[in-house]
């Protein structure tokens, strides 16, 4: 009955949004029962391609073959009927529904719920046994951890009898242990004959989990290779179109005097829950302290407290001078004056105003700088524009147009604007949160180089990142945070991902849970 060895074949798929050609003549063939990786920089067209496959967009040209049969996918319903399931990067779950309700939504058996719920309960129990996908069917989704929510998404697809599972950046929010579990699940699914497409920008995951990998660049499919016959270096080169240094080159640190000293820092959120539970550390001049941890374990609060964005208690000194943690002087402006520059974790909410132009954004926080003033009353916009143009050139922001709205830049270039603004202020201490989140590999390389250069110029750097690779390659010392506390400090040269991963899960070296 089944003809053709390919679960999915795309032939000559093209899609344009206005003048932007998001996909150009894409050809790809995914053999049944394999894990197929798709890798590419942001904006390379991966998401567009998958949206076409899931019926969100219709291709301008080209053909989709499912199991050798030409199939039209005008909407998600058709995609589901064709046996395609999708696990999105941002989960499509109803937060205040139970797991069961989320699973049956859109796949109910009839107009009444009771029978559907009973049937789903039975199916779910079978599926969770078969594939290590245990979740409590009656739990509310909002009470589940991110890893479990992802399992609900996979269960949703399997409940709809998906044969082909597409996962978009599935490990971005998982701990290393959760990610390992996910890959075990995927291998189990593959063993049952399911076909899996894994979209990711993490080369390590591609190498670990996939059978074949397709590389996309600027809307075209550059190459498809067998994973066993390639290397991370080759894939990175294919993605960017030139050789990329995956390892950050840096000289050994030569730490100087203590710049930042933090003693027993505590933060409570608006519900009175303690998010930061007594954190203490020091950073010296010419040193990068990396904070590793799964998102949501107090790293954001640490950054915001030091950046003057939220109130905290404890004792913090900068070059021996105490920093106020609440009340007067505990604001971003005072912090900047004290010599702290801050690249916030969430550039869209705290780093930029997307509707404003690049030059307006470049001046945020520094409007009062003397070189930006025309006289006592007026700002010197021309000076800001000129300064912006200069910084854009130094930081290779593309396109280098100061008058362009921030939202018109790609994610990587938006981040370069923020980084340029903060790095160029000659701070004593630099707070850097998720510097390369959503940034493509070429820009990552650049930002990393700049960070090292700043360190070598004798600045103290506090780096928060959920990317363990980034923390390991940049930091001179690593602190691991879990549940609002620092679980321990490690030397990047003597530790490994396994040890850090355990600390990130709250398990100390002696094996007991904290």
């Amino acid at each position: 009955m089944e003809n053709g060895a390919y679960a999915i074949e795309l032939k000559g798929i093209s899609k344009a949004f206005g003048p932007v050609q998001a996909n150009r003549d894409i050809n790809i063939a995914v053999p049944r029962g394999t894990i197929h990786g798709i890798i590419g920089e942001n904006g390379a067209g991966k998401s567009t391609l998958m949206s076409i496959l899931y019926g969100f967009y219709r291709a301008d040209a080209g053909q989709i073959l499912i199991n050798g049969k030409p199939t039209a996918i005008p909407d998600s319903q058709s995609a589901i009927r064709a046996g395609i399931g999708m696990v999105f990067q941002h989960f499509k779950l109803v937060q205040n529904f139970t797991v069961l309700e989320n699973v049956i939504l859109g796949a109910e058996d009839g107009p009444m719920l009771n029978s559907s719920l009973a049937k789903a309960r039975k199916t779910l129990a079978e599926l969770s046994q078969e594939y290590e996908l245990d979740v409590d069917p009656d739990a509310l989704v909002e009470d589940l951890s991110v890893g479990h929510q992802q399992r609900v998404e996979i269960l949703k697809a399997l409940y709809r009898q998906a044969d082909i599972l597409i996962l978009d950046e599935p490990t971005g929010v998982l701990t290393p242990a959760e990610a390992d579990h996910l890959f075990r699940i995927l291998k189990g699914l593959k063993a049952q004959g399911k076909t899996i497409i894994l979209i990711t920008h993490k080369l390590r995951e591609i190498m670990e989990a996939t059978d074949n990998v397709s590389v996309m660049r600027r809307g075209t499919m550059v190459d498809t290779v067998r994973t066993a016959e390639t290397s991370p270096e080759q894939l990175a080169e294919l993605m960017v179109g030139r050789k990329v240094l995956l390892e950050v080159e840096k000289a050994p640190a030569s730490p100087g005097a203590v710049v930042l000293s933090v003693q027993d820092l505590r933060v409570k959120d608006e519900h009175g829950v303690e998010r930061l539970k007594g954190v203490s550390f020091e950073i010296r001049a010419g040193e990068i302290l990396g904070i590793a941890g799964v998102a949501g374990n107090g790293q954001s609060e640490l950054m915001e407290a030091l950046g003057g964005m939220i109130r905290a208690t404890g004792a913090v000194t900068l070059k021996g001078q105490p920093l106020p943690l609440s009340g007067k002087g505990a604001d971003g402006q005072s912090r900047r004056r004290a010599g702290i520059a801050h690249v916030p974790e969430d550039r869209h909410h705290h780093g930029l105003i997307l509707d404003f132009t690049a030059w307006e954004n470049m001046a945020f926080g520094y409007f009062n700088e003397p070189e930006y003033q025309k006289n006592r009353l007026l700002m010197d916009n021309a000076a800001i524009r000129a300064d912006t143009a200069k910084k854009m050139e130094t930081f290779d922001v593309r396109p280098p147009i100061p008058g362009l709205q921030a939202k018109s830049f790609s994610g990587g270039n938006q981040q370069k604007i923020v980084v340029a603004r903060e790095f160029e202020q000659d701070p004593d201490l630099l707070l850097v949160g998720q510097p390369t989140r959503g940034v493509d590999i070429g820009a990552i390389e650049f930002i990393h180089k700049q960070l090292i250069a700043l360190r070598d110029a004798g600045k103290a750097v506090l780096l928060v990142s959920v990317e363990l690779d980034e923390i390991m390659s940049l930091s001179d010392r690593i602190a691991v945070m879990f549940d609002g506390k620092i679980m321990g400090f490690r030397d990047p040269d003597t530790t490994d991902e396994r040890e850090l991963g355990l600390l990130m899960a709250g398990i100390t070296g002696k094996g007991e849970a904290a």
Partner: protein
Amino acid sequence: MDYATFLQMLDSTLRLATPLMLACIAGLYSERAGIFDIGLEGKMLAAAMCAGAAAALSGSVWWGLLAGIGGSLVFAAIHGVTSITFRGNQLISGVALNFLASGLTVLVAQSMFGQGGRTPPLNGPARFQPIALPFAEEARAIPVIGPFYDEVISGHPLPVYAAFAVVALTWWVLYRTRFGLRLRAVGENPAAVDTAGVSVVGLRYAAVMVTGVLCGLAGAYMATALQAGFGKEMTAGRGYIALAALIFAKWRPVAAMWACLLFGFFQALANRPDVVEAVVQVKVPVPFLTALPYVLTVLVLAGFVGKAIPPRAGGEPYVKER
């Protein structure tokens, strides 16, 4: 206050709570689907005018009811097109429709009947007549319960009973049917509904239309049962009180019924300041009683009485992500 007066108060509470309940449940459908509807007031007003006019012309309350629902549906459809199809601002659309209804109803009624913007007074079969429940007369003899049955439970026009049936039906639809599951989902996370292969637009239109039907019933009741004909601004802010009740009830149908009964009771009190004065021994200004529903709603919103969390996707037009 003696027992007879108390029963009178409850009786008028039921009659006054009915349009609130219908409008409140109407709003519940729309808002649970993620479409804010501040235009309940306008829809009720349009329905009241259409119902009053049709009942006066045909002499039948049923034509009045049909016309009322029709008028309300037209307004609901406009709100649907602006906020779902064209992704406009739902609050602005609602406010605009309220203004439109406020002016248009008087204009049409005046040009049709020339009676100062009113529709002609209705009587007989052009109005909903009280329905005497079985054994109401006979039950009077039973102490306490008997008069309660006769005075409060029995003797209301059909829409009063319909309103309670609508509450029960809505609870069942919302929590026991596929449509209800999808409706609640689309107000919380339309992307989840969309990726599950269900039409967000279709669901939202369905919800807005249900809102139109129920507002139509509420408005028709105002013009053909509570009063005998349409009069200028006769809904008198009931659409807003219904919205307040919806928030007070945290968007849950049974709680909405209780909230509307409570607010209906306040309205009954405002109609009888003499009773209030006799009970509390102080002269309470009527505006204070009228304002009570809003005061309570503000307290709820401020978090004093539990927490009112609106449907998460409420007010936001759904745009597919890349």
